[in-house]
């Protein structure tokens, strides 16, 4: 921009006025810079402040949750070691802290934009504030999935092993996947991202999965299916001696 100004003033200006032109240009430039810099500085300060506040709030929330033993409460309800056993290695308090950090940082970013371009920033902030409830609900749905799916997976796994199913782990995986698919569809619908597509995808996946499992069981494991049915029918008509093998405590 400076070079452009210099070129524009250079050709037909008298030698004495060239210096004045340069001076004027620099003055204009610095005057412009002086007008813009505080805004830019304010933008960066707000962004950095946002990140710092987000970080502090994250740590504060995690500390608070540690004090109230949030992780222990969740693990008592859902299984202490489920985080590692099902591939999830993040603690619930960490998830909550990260969620708060992201929200805070985003709010400050909106504020920072409102300094640079008040109309855009205000719109962004307004949109964000309007969107916040949906975002919060979507986040809560995902949190529920995060907490509930391992619990359901574990329940199915234990029940399947106890029912002597050979595909216990697969059954548990299917159960967890179904919970996630269902909750993801719900969360996407909340966020307004392809609401119909999400619901349709869920329906297709669920019916496809059901069909695939039915086919796999019916065709791939015909013998197992027959045996399972025979066992069930035999159980239903069994005599006292047969079921009493363990039936009585």
């Amino acid at each position, binding site marked *: 921009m400076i070079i452009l100004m210099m070129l524009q003033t250079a050709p037909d200006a008298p030698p004495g006025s060239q210096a004045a032109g340069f001076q004027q240009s620099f003055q204009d430039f610095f005057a412009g810079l002086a007008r813009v810099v505080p805004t830019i500085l304010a933008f960066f300060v707000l962004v950095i402040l946002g990140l710092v506040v987000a970080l502090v709030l994250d740590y504060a929330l995690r500390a608070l949750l540690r004090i109230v033993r949030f992780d*222990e409460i969740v*693990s*008592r*309800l*859902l*299984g*202490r*070691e489920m985080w*590692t*056993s099902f591939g999830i290695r993040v603690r619930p308090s960490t998830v909550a802290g990260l969620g708060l950090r992201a929200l805070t940082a985003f709010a400050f970013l909106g504020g920072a934009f409102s300094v640079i371009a008040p109309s855009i920033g205000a719109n962004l902030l307004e949109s964000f504030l309007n969107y916040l409830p949906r975002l919060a609900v979507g986040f809560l749905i995902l949190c529920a999935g995060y907490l509930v799916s391992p*619990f359901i997976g*574990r*329940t199915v*796994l*234990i*029940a*399947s*092993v*106890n*029912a*002597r199913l*050979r595909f*216990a*782990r697969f059954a548990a995986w299917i159960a967890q996947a179904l919970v996630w698919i269902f909750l993801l569809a719900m969360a996407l619908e909340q966020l307004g991202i392809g609401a119909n597509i999400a619901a349709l995808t869920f329906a297709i996946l669920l019916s496809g999965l059901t069909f695939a499992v039915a086919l796999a069981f019916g065709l791939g494991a015909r013998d197992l299916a027959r045996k399972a049915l025979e066992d069930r029918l035999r*159980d*239903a008509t*069994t*005599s*006292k*001696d*047969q*079921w*009493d*093998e*363990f*039936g*009585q*405590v």
Partner: protein
Amino acid sequence: MNPARTPKALDLEPHLQQFIEKQKSLDIVVGIPSFHSGRTVAHVIRAVECGLRKYFSNYSTGIVISDGSSTDDTESVCRLTQLPPESLLRPTDTWTPIPRIFTRYSGIPGKGSALRTIFEVAHRLHARAVAVVDSDLRSITAEWVELLLGPILWRDHDYCCPLYARHKYDGTITNSLVYPLVRALYRRNVRQPIGGDFGFSSRILEKYVAADVWESDVARFGIDIWMTTTALVNSQKVCQVFLGSKIHDPKDPGAHLSGMLQQVTSAVFSRIVADRAVWSTVDQAKELSLFGLPFAVGLDPIHVDVERMVATFEQALVDLLPMLEAALRPETLRGVRALAGQKPRSFVMPTELWRDIVFDYLTEYATGRLPQNHLLPSLFPLYLGRTASWVRETERSSASEVEAKLEELCISFDHGRRELLARWPGEQR
């Protein structure tokens, strides 16, 4: 049981109140909890009435049937069943009917709620002795009534536990878990703590009526162990009576065994945790008196699929490993994993290892760290492993040899008691 809380008084139905007002008091009450027992309850009623007439004709007696809203003909059978006079050989001067009442209990569906109504009626009738017997018994005789009530009325005992003759593969949950645990911790050799048929005195009845457990699992399925452990912690006068074989009507064959184990384990563990302050102070083991004449009975053979049990055990070692790692101590887990790969016909789970498994699960249950509905079902494959081992070890054993092996198991549990107490939650230093 929470002694600090007073249980909500049980509202009895008007016809039950009228029955109590009419009878005023009875020396003996026999209770029969029933649910869809139309096929079997008639025999139970006749046996009870026969026993009362035969052995307790000098006492005022009554029968209370507490039903769980059966939709079959249980009610009409209960009302119409009569004891034929020829059931008793000795002539009697009078044949006054024994008061009998049929009622539908209120509260959480389960045997516990049914018995609660019976307790309440017996208490309001100032009964000196109460007996409860299951409604699906096919082997009950008049002598059971004498055996369950006699020690209470004539020998100053407070609680009579049943002792049945059972096939060596029958009652494996009792044999491998409940009996050794109760014996090691409560220090009394109650062979059938969850037998289902009991006799007890008014002193114990007071404890039952005053208890605040009727909103818990006791009301559903944990009543038997609760009755026994309540008697054990409240009285020294507990005895056993030999009743011969116990033959049930086949019930709920579809019920999954793992669910049954979970119920029993939950009931036993919860009582042990609740009574810890009491049993932990009992040092001296006490042999219970045995009444009745033990005799050999013919028992139907029981077929067991050991291979399937071992297969489930092996599968759990792979699929449920994270759960087992959470529930068992490292040394116990090492012992369990060392069993992998054994052939079903030679599968052995050492007695000490099974004891450690049970104690680890008990302490984990007491800490409450793991959800119960994950912890307790995960014991099932290990229990199957233990049962497979038990079947293999006793396949050629006689009844007395089986009891000797069971004695070894109990001694092992006894030896682990001190260590269990030392690592009980809150006791570690």
